[in-house]
């Protein structure tokens, strides 16, 4: 990519060392699961502030909303719509505290956004995601429901999935990076300033770290999806800028894989291998998706000089991918 730089060839011992490290890592580590969940935190918060009847109401709406989502995923448009109608009817007919109603409404808009996205009404989907974001801002600023911040990030992620689905990588990837930085504790990085909150909250718990890794994983999936496409050059520049930007003080677990990715885009296999080895060092358990996507890049980068070792690496990627409940499409393409 960068004509000024001289290519360095990967060293066979270096590759062998990396393969041994990955084999050992995969056999001895499991991915972490957060001790607490967003659902639990949100429910606890609401439990402290709304009557029991409201919690029952929330549950009923959540159950129907989830059924609506399940049907949408199965492409059952009318059944999905019917369940959304039932949630709306519940909302109208049951009196509840404003915070309860707004919580139900925010999640409902997110789910309906998915419905419209699934059935090719992207304009409506985007509008509904905005509504959800705005309601979440109210829930956080006016009602102090801080766990909803996770839902805001999930909405940011949903925007990006929608944009990526439409091939708008240049729009999606910066938002994912900013969302990951925000989740990692950088308030200023919130990707939708028009919907920023006034409240400042601590983001040190395990749940935030899990969210950061989820967003980082989605960013790396997006990079992998775009790196062979028509926007590859621009994507490479985006990664380069992300690594260089002085206002982006990145924690190591974001910076190291991004720097490795930059080296990959610079088409310098030797340098990339060194960077990748550093980025993979925390191990598979840290962020399995980023780990295997980087490993896949290593396989691609070393193939011209060491095809046998490239095959070994791709075998490890395949084995590792089997650990995912749903293997991301980009990871199953070698």
């Amino acid at each position, binding site marked *: 990519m960068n004509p000024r730089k001289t290519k360095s060839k990967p060293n066979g011992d270096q590759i062998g060392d990396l393969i041994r490290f990955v084999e050992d890592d995969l056999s001895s580590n499991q991915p972490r699961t957060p001790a607490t969940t967003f659902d639990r935190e949100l429910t606890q918060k609401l439990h402290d502030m709304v009557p029991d*009847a409201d919690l029952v109401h929330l549950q009923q709406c959540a159950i129907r909303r989830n059924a609506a989502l399940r049907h949408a995923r199965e*492409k059952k*448009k009318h059944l999905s719509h019917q369940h959304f109608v039932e949630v709306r009817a519940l909302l109208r007919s049951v009196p509840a505290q404003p915070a309860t109603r707004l919580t139900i409404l925010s999640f409902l808009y997110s789910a309906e956004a998915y419905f419209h996205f699934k059935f090719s009404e992207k304009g409506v989907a985007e509008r509904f995601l905005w509504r959800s974001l705005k309601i979440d801002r109210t829930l956080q600023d006016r009602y102090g429901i801080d766990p909803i911040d996770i839902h805001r990030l999930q909405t940011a992620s949903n925007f990006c999935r929608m944009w990526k689905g439409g091939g708008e990588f240049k729009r999606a990837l910066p938002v994912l990076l900013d969302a990951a930085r925000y989740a990692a504790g950088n308030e200023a990085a919130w990707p939708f300033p028009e919907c920023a909150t006034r409240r400042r909250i601590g983001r040190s718990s395990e749940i935030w770290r899990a969210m950061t890794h989820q967003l980082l994983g989605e960013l790396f999936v997006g990079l992998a999806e775009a790196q062979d496409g028509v926007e590859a050059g621009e994507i490479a520049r985006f990664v380069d800028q992300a690594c260089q930007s002085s206002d982006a003080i990145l924690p190591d677990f974001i910076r190291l894989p991004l720097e490795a990715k930059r080296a990959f885009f610079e088409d310098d296999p030797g340098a990339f291998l060194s960077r990748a080895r550093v980025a993979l060092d925390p191990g598979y358990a840290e962020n399995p998706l980023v780990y295997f996507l980087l490993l896949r890049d290593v396989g691609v980068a070393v193939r011209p000089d060491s095809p046998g070792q490239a095959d070994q690496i791709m075998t490890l990627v395949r084995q590792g991918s089997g650990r995912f409940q749903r293997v991301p499409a980009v990871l199953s393409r070698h």
Partner: protein
Amino acid sequence: MLKLSRYCVASEPFADSDSGHIKHVIMSGRTGEVRVIDAQAWDNLTAADEGYADISPQTRYELTEIEALVPEGEDELSVILSRNEAAQKDSRLFYLVIQPTASCQLGCGYCGQEHTNQILDTADTKKLVDLAEHKLSAGDVEVFQVGWFGAEPLNALKKVYELSAKFQKLSERHGCAYGAKVVTNGVKLKHGVAARLNHTCGVKMVEITLDGDKSFHDKRRFTKKQRPSFDKIYQNLLAVARDPDIDFRLNIRCNVDEENVDGVFPLIERLADDGLQDRIQFYTAPVHSWGNDAHLRAVEKERYARWEVECIAFLVNKGFRPSIVPNRKDVVCLAAMDHGLLVDAYGEAFDCTEVSFVPTYGDDNIFKIGTMKNGVDQGARSIFKDYAKGVAHGEYPCGSCEILPLCGGSCPKQWNEGLCPCPPTKFNIRERMLLHYCASKLQPAG
């Protein structure tokens, strides 16, 4: 707040030997989910008018999730009918039932069909393939399923082979999954025929009718020349069932009325003695009107329902795995499918499987919705629409029946004809639920 769903059914209480507690099995008809609940919790539920304060949050959540508890103000009938309608619209199945011939070797007394040697002719065959092509090319079909139905479909085997090949090609071209089932009397289901149906015609299920053990079966399912048929059919069944290379599902249907009810258990014993427990699904069905008076000799419904439970228990004891509790049924039959159609050997089209070849419905069949020659009038599909309207307007008792979500209303045509097609499940659902629980406690053999 919440209320107990009108479609939540509970069994009689029973003493659970594991825990020593008195319990009920409950079934939420809205989702088809079955649970076991402590009698005390059930008593609280049925007595509750205080917002279910005495029920633990966990139990409340679980019951809400399976829709045994529902929002207090919800019009449940309206929700069920709306969901059924939505499911019908969402169906991406094109279900084409074909009666390739009007002929049948058997002359069963309860059959309402008029049999002739008519076979679907070349012109209608071509039109039928065109119709399928048109359906699949519209792009909203994911699964193309063909039902070979009679009279006796295997009396027109060449037609079945010819059309199967064409349909499979069509499906492949349009990216649809293809599958077929055959409903047959079994007389011509020789091993070679079964193998070909399975391996080259996409047949995934075959249903054979046996009306009891030999002596009972032969008294009612004899040939038109009054010859017995049991031995031939049973030999075919054994040959097919014992070939591991033939992997379609095998259903044995047993039509039951006063005449043969005593012959069913001996048949089950025979099937069990022949080791077919893992190979076949056995079920019974009460004889009903097929545009005739067959229902008049049916076993009285509640007695049949009691007998049916005994029969299911007998099947379980013999090592079979019968379907014990029904699933949620949102699309009740062909009549309720937007993409469902029956085409008979005369090239006539219907939205019901029980009206073609039936002389009672006139020379120019009153249920006909088109022909292959002149096209099918989708607007003429009225059997299910008339029924659904009737339920919504309270004209049929289904609107207040606790098992409506499970039976889907049963046969809409019979309701429209003034008959009452309520399935036995209406009368034995509670016993079935207990049996389901007992069966779940049995250790698998071996």
